[in-house]
Structures are given as structure tokens and as C-alpha cells.
């Protein structure tokens, strides 16, 4: 069963009179439990596609559905309030930069989503997730007191804390050395394998991309078949 379904999805940016089709009529279905890697040269549109599929950006054309919710159809996008709910319930995001709040401890950073949506049942997740990601001894540290690899693991924990069905990761190893990159790749692989979380990944890292069950290459905003 598909968790995300996109048909003829496009994103057009305007720079002055010039129209740039960052995503150009892409149709793709992503099933629950898939591990998908988008690869391609810089400017190929893989990050833009990730943002559209993760409901962070509005498409310019096409159709997009997440689970049973139609996000975009016939030039009509879902309202901001419903989009917020959708992001909260379905998605966890990991970025190249970790975006941790420097004044909060590791534990508090992991729990930031709870500040906006209280779900007592999920609080026990924190310890479990921290242990899974090897952060149990770092929970009271500030971000400046931990390594880059640990910071990315904190960002992954934060993305996981709401029990998302899909994790979207944009160059999650971009700021890490090869050893830390391998750790992160293994974590994402195990989340997909052991927990059935759908992973959608954008990366330049071939080793990381190879962890995915589906590797999709993009060029000029289109899928290469």
C-alpha cells in the first residue's frame, strides 16, 4: 500500500522572467516500508522533490497524496493547519545541518516536538530511542559538548520521537566523516528494516545510497528510468 503517491508533480521557480522547472512532471509511488534513495548531480531537483513529498513545499502542478489525504490536486493545496497536522503525524525530517537548539540539552532537543504536540504515550519513546541511537549517556549534555555524528543522531532521535511513518533525510551525512556516515547509514537501515519506517533519502554519498532498496536518479528535474 502506498504511503505517498505523486502524479505529474512539478515545481517551478521564477527568477525574474526565467522559469526554472526544479521538478518536472514526476510520477512516483512510495509504498509503506520502502527505503528510497534519490541521487543525482547538484541542481537535478532531488532536494526539491524531497520537499514536495514531505509536504514542506507546495507543488506548482500535478497531484500529491499522503496516505488517505490529498495534499495537492487541481492547483489546490491543503491549508496550512492541515499541513502542520500531516507533517506532525506522518513525517520526521533529518537535514544536513542538524538544527539543534544550542541552549537545550540533548534530551530536551529530542523532546522539542512534544512542546507543540503533547502525547504522553510517546514520552517513553525518548529513552528507548536514545538507547537505540547510543545517546543514553549524552542526554544531559548540550549540543556543543557532543560530536557531529552524535548531533546527527540527536536529530534522527528528534525525527523519530513522534513515531513517524516516513523519515525524509536530506544529505544526512553531508557534514560527517566516513566513519560517522557509516554509523548514520546503518541507523537508517535498521529503522527501515526493524521498525518498518519508510525512508526517503537524498544523498551524494554512493555508499549510503546503496543501503536503499530503490535508488532513483534524477536529472534536470526528471526521473531517469
Amino acid at each position, binding site marked *: 500500500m502506498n504511503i505517498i503517491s505523486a502524479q505529474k508533480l512539478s515545481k517551478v521557480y521564477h527568477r525574474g522572467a526565467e522559469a526554472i522547472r526544479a521538478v518536472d512532471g514526476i510520477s512516483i509511488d512510495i509504498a509503506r516500508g520502502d527505503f528510497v534513495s534519490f541521487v543525482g548531480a547538484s541542481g537535478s*531537483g532531488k*532536494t526539491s522533490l524531497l*520537499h514536495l513529498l514531505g509536504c*514542506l513545499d507546495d507543488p506548482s502542478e500535478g497531484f500529491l497524496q499522503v496516505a488517505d489525504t490529498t495534499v495537492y490536486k487541481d492547483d489546490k493545496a491543503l491549508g496550512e493547519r492541515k499541513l*502542520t497536522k500531516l507533517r506532525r503525524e506522518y513525517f520526521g525530517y533529518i*537535514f544536513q545541518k542538524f538544527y539543534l537548539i544550542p541552549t537545550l540539552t540533548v534530551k530536551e532537543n529530542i523532546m*522539542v*516536538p512534544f*512542546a507543540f*504536540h503533547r502525547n504522553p504515550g510517546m514520552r517513553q519513546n525518548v529513552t528507548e530511542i536514545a538507547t537505540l541511537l547510543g545517546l543514553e549517556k549524552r542526554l544531559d549534555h548540550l549540543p556543543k559538548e557532543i560530536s557531529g555524528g552524535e548531533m546527527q543522531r540527536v536529530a534522527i532521535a528528534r525525527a523519530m520521537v513522534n513515531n513517524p511513518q516516513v523519515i525524509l533525510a536530506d544529505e544526512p551525512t553531508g557534514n560527517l566523516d566516513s566513519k560517522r556516515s557509516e554509523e548514520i547509514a546503518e541507523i537508517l537501515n535498521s529503522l527501515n528494516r526493524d521498525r518498518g519506517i519508510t525512508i526517503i533519502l537524498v544523498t551524494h554519498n554512493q555508499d549510503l545510497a546503496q543501503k536503499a532498496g530503490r535508488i532513483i536518479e534524477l536529472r534536470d528535474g526528471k526521473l531517469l528510468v
Partner: protein
Amino acid sequence: MPTINRIAYKNLRRKRLRSILTLFGITLSTWVLVSLLGFNQGYEKSLNSDIDNLGFQVLLTAKGCPYEAATLMMQGGAGLRYLPDSVLDDLSEHPEVIGLTPMLMQVAFDPHIGDTGGIAAYTGVDPRTFPGMKTYLEFAQGGWFEDPEALEAVIGYEAAELEQREVGDYLLIPDHDVELKVVGILKRSGTQDDGTVFVPYKALQKVFGVEGKLTSIGIRVDKDTNYSEFEEKLYELPDVQVVSMAQVKSTISNLVGTARIMVMSIALIAILIAMIGVMNTILMSVLERYQEIGIMKSMGASAMHIFRLIWTESVIICLLGGILGALLSIGLAAATEALIRYILPYSPKGSLIYIDLPLILRSIGIIVGIGLFSGIYPAYRAARVKPIEAIRSSEGEI
């Protein structure tokens, strides 16, 4: 468990120096505001208390300058003009009058005051009527004189301290070589009576050679009296000046009005500067955390959550500043009062700055209100951040 309030508080600690400087501005503004409101409250209260403690509502003096008469009423002093004491009989015929007390103020040059000498003042009062009007006066030693012609004196607390006199001692009226026996020393009353030497008025008339003359008459009137009608009746008496309590209040209020407006303007400017400071601090903080706010939105924060987060930051800073400013104003109340007394043309006795809990709560409420107002624009800006714009500005790839 991080809450919006906790995240907001910790955000303020991120740029400590900036937050402390903003807090300092708010603290100073609150200090000015609380002191000003405390002054308005205290001045009014002290002035009313001074006037109520006069014991009478209307003062009759010889015709002259009304401001001079007001000064006479509030601070004592020797009138240059006299009323004949037969006026007492005329006044007692008015049905509105429920009490009368004649007063005679006289001064004598005392070469022993200071290095070059000074003026010693004496207030002649009627022992039968005056104590009934000044019921709040209490004695530390002795009591009131009883004979209106006796060469005796009752002295106020400060005058007794200055003259180093006790009951049974004698007080010399310089130039006249007359000694007054001290029969009573008053407790501190917080009024001008503390510095006064009271003498039976008929004795004082004789000593100073002004028999049959008075400088003023205090009139206590019935509570239902129409003051303007009563004043008109009094002006039918020849060569009199009528000073009512309301006139005195209004005269003094006019005198200090300019100073009050000036202080109010300073407070307003201080509040405005603090408001701009808060807005600037919070706006800077929003712009610096643009991407972070976008990420929060991707984690499920709604526009309202972000608005609340930023708004809370401005409220926290104003609440802390408000509390610190209120404490500062209480701590510096004595110094502020001394400064105000130095500036004002006339200050009543008693506390000029009256700070109570409702005033503090009201002031903190105003400051928090300013925080809420100042935070609206930065919070609105933050709430409008789209996650994609924030992320794209950082990732740089399309």
C-alpha cells in the same frame, strides 16, 4: 520536558549580554513608572493628610495675597496683617460654623540660632478651642496649658529636640526678655506642628504688644456646608481673606503640576525606549533563528505555537524587568523622595512616594502589556516563516 515557556526562557539566555541590556532598560523604565505613580499617590495622600490635620476647613486671615495666606495655612509663619479679635463674635453667629480657633503668629530674632542668628516663630492658640481641633496631637510629656494668659508653652517634637527642652524648663523669647515655662512636649506628628512653639494667644498678644489682634482664625464648618455660599458670606466681613481647603489643594496642585508633567513625560519616553528595545531584541532573535523556526514548523509547530513562543520571550523579559524595577523603586524610594523634595516648590509632610501592592501589580501589568505589544510584530514575523523558505535559505540547493 521542554515546554514553549522553557524554550522561550532558554532562548533569551542564548545572547546573554543583549538580553541583560534589554532587561536593564525595562528595569529602569519600571523604576521610573513605579516611582512616578507612587509619587502621584503619595503626594495626594500626604497633601490631604496635611490639610486634614489642620483641624479646620477654612482659614480666615487679613485681606492680602491668597498665596501668602495659603503658605500661612500650610507652613505657618507671621502674617504681616492683623484681624481684630472681634471677628470671632461675628463668625460665631453663622449657623455653618461649628468651631472657631483664633491664632496669632509672631516671630522674634534669636541671635543664638545658627552662626548669624535666625527667626524664632511662636503660634498663639486658644487652649479652650485649639486642642479640640488638633485631636491627633499626643503628648510625650505634660499637657496643654489651661490659662489663655499664662506665660507657658507647649512645644513640638522637633522644636523640643532643637531647643533641648523638657517640661519644667523655660524658653526665652529674645528681644522681649520674657520666659515661657514649658508645660508640654508633643510626640512626633509628621506635620508642621512638630517644629512649632505653641503659646496661649492672649499671653502672646501682650508679649508682642498686639492686644486684640489675630493673624488668622481657623473655622470648622458643618459637613453639609456649601463652601462657595459660606465664603461669600464671610467676604461680607471687612478686610478679610478666606482660604478654603479646596483652594489650598488646588493652589498647591497648580504649583507642582508642571513638575508632575515633566516627570510623566520622562516616564513616557523611558517606556517608549524600553518598548523599542524589547522589539529590537526579539526581532533580532527571530531573524537569527529563522532556520530554527522553520525546522520547528517542520516538526509540527503551528503558526500559533511559534507566535506564542516569540511572544512569551518578550513577556518573560518584561515580567523579569518589571519585578526587578519594582524592587529597585522600593529600594530607592527614600533617595527618589529626597530628589523630588529638592525639585518641588512645596512638599507636604509624610511620605511623598507611596508604593503599595496594587500599585506594583498595576505597574508590572503595564510593563507586561508593553511586552505583549512589543512582541506582536516579531512574533507575527516568526509565525509567518515557511519551513521551506527557512530550510532553503540554509541548504542552498533547489
